[in-house]
């Protein structure tokens, strides 16, 4: 039986919760650019450092590109590293995101997901992280404030594992989670090192043992390096199992790669990322009482993509609706939709799949919206198909 530590129930905003987890993780280096689209996360961390509550170097960079570059150097030197950004800030980091993963520099970055320009918008959607989808990072998504805290702690342990050595992003919906106060159970400080021992980086820069980092690789070796990156990501699911079991021992909370509600025995499932899961679940509970056989699922881990779990979960349902808060312009639909289509196709599951593109630039996804989507999913299961492939939800034409 899991041993659950004495918990303290408190109230925090999502960004405060992330900062608190980072403090408890006892990071060595925080590098960040402090202006919009920044959140309170790094503001709190700078206070923790200034007040002597966190013994770390807080480095204020002149741009996000520099912030992430500092993080790569510090990580390779063996430091435990954290940064945070969103939206245009993440876009500006893009070049170095690739370097961080392929130089195998573990670090944790919180992304308070926000839309990209243009038009100018500061509100939630997932365009920022989807733009970073193929950078070789591990991408985790929180559905509430508690998960933002928990996943931040788990991200350090996962990324720093010797079998993995990769950067991890913890995504929390901008404003919807980053600026929401919710109840939070935090681990007592003394329990954290038990779950998350100090970073032990096997290739830390050491002047007494000179080595080359970020070397050039010509066509005869480049592909081998890139394959290693892919193979490291493929090891993540099994390491995640260990990390989540270990986290459950200290917290009592269990995290699978895909979380779900009432999927077993349902005719239709709606799949989403982030805080929308809670709204869908809230409404699905009521609709199931009315006899509608719908379930809801959400990916805690988006990269590496939990193909096997999803293939099993969706293998017996009659229809799926995939919710995307981002779009692949000129492509087939939203990124989660095409991932799930591919998963179903190559696992021999032939069922109708509808893509609902919603909530771009922070447009609210209401209880009424959730009800309509869940009913559409059930209808698709009943009729054996959907009238359209992709719906831009609630858009005026």
């Amino acid at each position: 039986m899991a041993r659950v530590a004495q918990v303290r129930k408190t109230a925090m905003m999502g960004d405060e919760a992330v900062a608190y987890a980072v403090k408890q993780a006892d990071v060595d280096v925080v590098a960040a650019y402090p202006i919009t689209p920044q959140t309170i996360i790094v503001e709190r961390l700078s206070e923790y450092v200034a007040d002597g509550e966190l013994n770390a170097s807080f480095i204020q960079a002149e741009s996000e590109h520099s912030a992430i570059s500092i993080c790569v150097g510090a990580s390779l030197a063996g430091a435990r590293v954290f940064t945070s950004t969103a939206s245009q800030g993440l876009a500006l980091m893009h070049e170095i995101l690739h370097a961080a993963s392929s130089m195998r520099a573990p670090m944790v970055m919180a992304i308070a997901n926000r839309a990209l320009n243009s038009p100018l918008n500061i509100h939630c959607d997932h365009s920022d992280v989807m733009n970073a989808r193929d950078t070789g990072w591990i991408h985790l998504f929180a559905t509430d404030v508690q998960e933002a805290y928990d996943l931040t702690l788990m991200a350090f342990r996962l990324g720093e594992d010797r079998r993995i050595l990769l950067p991890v992003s913890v995504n929390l919906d901008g404003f919807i989670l980053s600026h929401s106060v919710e109840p939070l159970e935090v681990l007592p400080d003394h329990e954290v090192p038990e779950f998350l021992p100090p970073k032990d980086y096997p290739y830390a820069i050491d002047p007494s043992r000179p080595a080359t980092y970020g070397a050039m690789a010509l066509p005869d070796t480049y592909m081998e390096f890139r394959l290693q990156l892919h193979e490291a990501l493929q090891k993540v699911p099994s390491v995640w199992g260990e990390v989540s079991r270990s986290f459950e021992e200290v917290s009592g909370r269990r995290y699978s790669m895909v979380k779900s509600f009432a999927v077993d025995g349902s005719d239709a499932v709606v799949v989403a990322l982030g805080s929308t899961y809670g709204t869908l679940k809230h409404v699905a509970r009521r609709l199931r009482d009315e006899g509608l056989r719908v379930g809801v699922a959400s990916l805690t881990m988006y990269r590496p993509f939990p193909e096997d779990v999803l293939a099993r979960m969706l293998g017996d349902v009659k229809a799926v609706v995939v919710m995307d808060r981002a779009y692949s312009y000129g492509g087939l639909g939203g990124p989660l939709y095409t991932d799930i289509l591919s998963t179903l196709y190559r696992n021999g599951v032939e069922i109708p799949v509808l893509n609902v593109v919603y909530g771009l630039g922070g447009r609210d996804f209401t209880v009424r919206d959730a009800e309509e989507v869940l009913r559409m999913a059930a209808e698709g299961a009943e009729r054996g198909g959907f009238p359209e492939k992709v719906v831009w939800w609630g858009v005026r034409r």
Partner: protein
Amino acid sequence: MIEVRWHGRGGQGVVTGSNLLARAAILEGKYAQHFPEFGPERSGAPVRSYTRISNQPIELHTGVYNPDIVVVIDPTMARNPEGFVQGLKRGGSLVLNYAGDVGRLSHIAGELDVKVHVVNAHRISLEEVGRKIYNVPMLAALARASGLVGLEAVKSALRSRFSGEALEINLRLLEKAYREVESLA
């Protein structure tokens, strides 16, 4: 689940008021959620914020469209409360920062079938501290009128957020406003 919608102007602490209400409820062992609605962040522009309080875990992450309670913390907005009651449930409550006689609001109470509670947070804050502080007195009025959270929990929430003179001022405003709430039966 009780849903509260706060109205006010940028700079008046609408978001902090809602934030403190959620913290107070959580300190009392309830489930609560505070969620601000950010528009263009300009001083003086209309601002909304939402609070949910429940005995069950709150899974919703969306705006409040049919509030049980509407709080208007800006006195110029509260002069015309008709503009802020959209979606307010019948049997719900309207809590206003209002200088006039509460009896003048009986037509709204009747039309909407809601209870109306007022406190003159404008006068109280000018008298007590010489400047306009609306959010904490209105939080006091909301707590008194609704019974959603106890005064002690609100004080604890204030202590978790403020210290020194700011705390002392807010505690004074809280007590004073709590005593002066008037309700239209």
